[in-house]
């Protein structure tokens, strides 16, 4: 990840769970996707993540891939790390 890349940055204010899934989806559909080089997510403070959260990440990734962009997870809390590993999705963490 070169320093001069223009990335959309986001740090969710809430947990990545079904309760907040729709709100997060709306937020991310905003100008987050407008940056040419992709998105960087800071999930360092996420306390709880469930399957709905995983789906959101996968969907965000799909949106970016369709634009030829990439998703980076800059920070992952222990909860996020555990969930992604349980699902075999640790590749997202690189």
């Amino acid at each position, binding site marked *: 990840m070169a320093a001069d890349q223009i990335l959309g940055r986001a740090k969710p204010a809430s947990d990545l769970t*079904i*309760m907040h*899934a*729709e709100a*997060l*989806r709306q937020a*991310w*559909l905003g100008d987050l*996707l407008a940056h040419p080089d992709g998105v960087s997510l800071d999930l360092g403070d996420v306390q709880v993540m*469930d*399957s*709905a959260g*995983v*789906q*959101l990440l*996968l*969907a*965000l990734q*799909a*949106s970016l891939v*369709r634009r030829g962009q990439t998703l980076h997870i800059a920070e992952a809390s222990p909860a996020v790390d555990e*969930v992604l590993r*349980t*699902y*075999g*999705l640790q590749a997202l963490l690189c």
Partner: protein
Amino acid sequence: MTRDEEILAVARAGFRDEAAELLVQFEQALLAIEQQPDDAEAMNCAFRAAHTMKGTAGLFGCEALVAFTHDVESLLDDLRSNAVSLQPDTMSVLLLARDQLEDLLAELDLPEPSVAVAQRSEALGVQLRALRGQQASSSGHAKAAASIPAAVGIDGMQTWRIALKMGPDALRNGLDPLSFIRYLTTLGSVTKIETQAVGAPDLAELDPEGCHLCFDIELLSSRSREEVEQTFEFLADDCQLSVSAMVSGSGQPADVAGGVALTTASVSDITETGSDMLVPVTPLASAERRSAPNDRRQQTKDRRGNDEARFIRVRADKLDALVDMIGELVIASSGAQMVAQQEHSARFVEAAARIHDLVQGARDGALGLRMVPIGESFSRFQRVVRDVSKQMGKDVELQITGGDTEMDKSMVETISDPLMHLVRNSLDHGIETLEERLATGKPTPGRLALHAYHESGSIIIEVSDDGRGLNRARILAKAVEQGLVPPDAQLDDEAVYQLIFRPGFSTAQQVTNLSGRGVGMDVVKSNVEALRGQIRIASQLGHGTTIQIRLPLTLAIIDGFLTSVAGVSYVLPLEIVGECIEMPAECQLGESASGCFDLRGEVVPYINLRRLFKHSGAAPARQSLIVVRTTMGQLGLLVDRLHGEYQTVIKPLGSIFQQVHGIAGSTILGSGEVALILDVAALEERVSGELQQRGGASARRVAVATAPTLSTNPS
């Protein structure tokens, strides 16, 4: 369809109906045995049910059903002959087997058997045989449904390939695959897992609360297939699961999921214990079938001897046609009576009166045919309460009273799902866990009561619990937050509780294991109102909640009381009429459609129907007031003229009249004129707002709040 196929189709439908009844008996017997393990009669009943089903299934060549039922029957036979004893999980397995029988029956209608159902048959079959103290190898009888025992590698470890595809509503139903997959790691080690979102939706396409995930998992474990499958038991309806054994090192599944013929590759993998599998099955199966008709005749003879009441099977549409015909007869009889009076012929009047009496008897009999005791639909709640309370770790006792209260059959079907939802709600949110109850000094087990009775021409069904009760403040806060009521609204308790019926009121916090058939509290209320009923709530925080549903007794014919206002005929149910008096002086005051009057010292509200329905013209000099009994006490109805008793056949109003509150239907008088049937409860609600504002109704509270079903404060 050829003639033979037609006959077979009809017979098969009859078999399914009979089997459905057998399953009900089976379940009740099992629940009885669970409560009372030495109940020999219940044990015999359960065995008979299974045996009869097996025999009849054999007649129709339903192999899968025969094979599975055989295992059930064998276990029950061993139990009742004391060849084996009850294990702690015997009854649970048998109840699951009963559910499996239901699924197998449902399969008869499908063109192809389902893989998942076949796998569950096999899994449960193993458990049933295990409970008889036998090895887990399949008996020779179950040929097509069994799959080959998995190849066992070195050290007893086996790699299982698990393909799991989630259903779209899983998350909404409170089932997150994450916890189930985490649990897998306690059974062994997950050597590989691939997670995908089906269709790879992007952010715009994603349904954020739906479930799009599917998983491809390899699990290295020493556990059996059944244990692996059981991990996902609770996901059953919301996923498609297949578990197959992988031949160690080959990376290929050793058997086709659901099991078909023996493949050459897997024959070599079979160990000695599986060798009895190779015994040809066909002679046994056909021998069973040949004896089945004889068995069956014996069974039906036994059953007839045991039944106290004899039943015959009647087609519902024929019964409906009969009830309609009787309805027409009632109208015609009234017409004849009118003519007799007009002809001033005493003999004719007498003859018409005799016909009228007979028609009334026929009417009552015909309507009685459609009435079924509500206890029949209450009894299925026993199973639900048992299962759900075990699932949640709560100790709940279900009390059913008034099960012989009768209700129109068509209404029973419509009210069943809402009742189920209310029961599950009480179990979920009402009754507390064992620890909470002990901590607050409440008695255990928690009590959930279903109570039905007749009152003033209606049937009342109450669902009550002695749990947490509704939190009025929290409900009001949530409603204000969702914009359902303005923040400064003044609402009494009943009005606040009614807020939970608003669509969209339920929150994600309440997402639990309730089955997602789209039955929310708002659907409960609309179902009740579609039956021209009302639903009310009374609750005491910390003590419990009672929900009361009031429904009309029948939708077809009522004994009516005919009145008229401004030349228009109105009918009200005769049962609620208390007395008729001359219009009191105070009713002449004021311009509004409602008010209060003095009835022997008591303040009673009344409705001026002429004004309420905005009839034009001047009122006659002498009007009459009918005092009727309602849920909330008494109510006066001011009309022009009274015409006395009238048998009324209710004809529904067209759908454009649905919004008119206060009219329940229409009827045709003997003269051919149309009369309107008053919905007194709805009328009362319509004006209660006005009356409340004028302080007239402050003394009136729902009688439910003091119902004896709420437990009293332990002190």
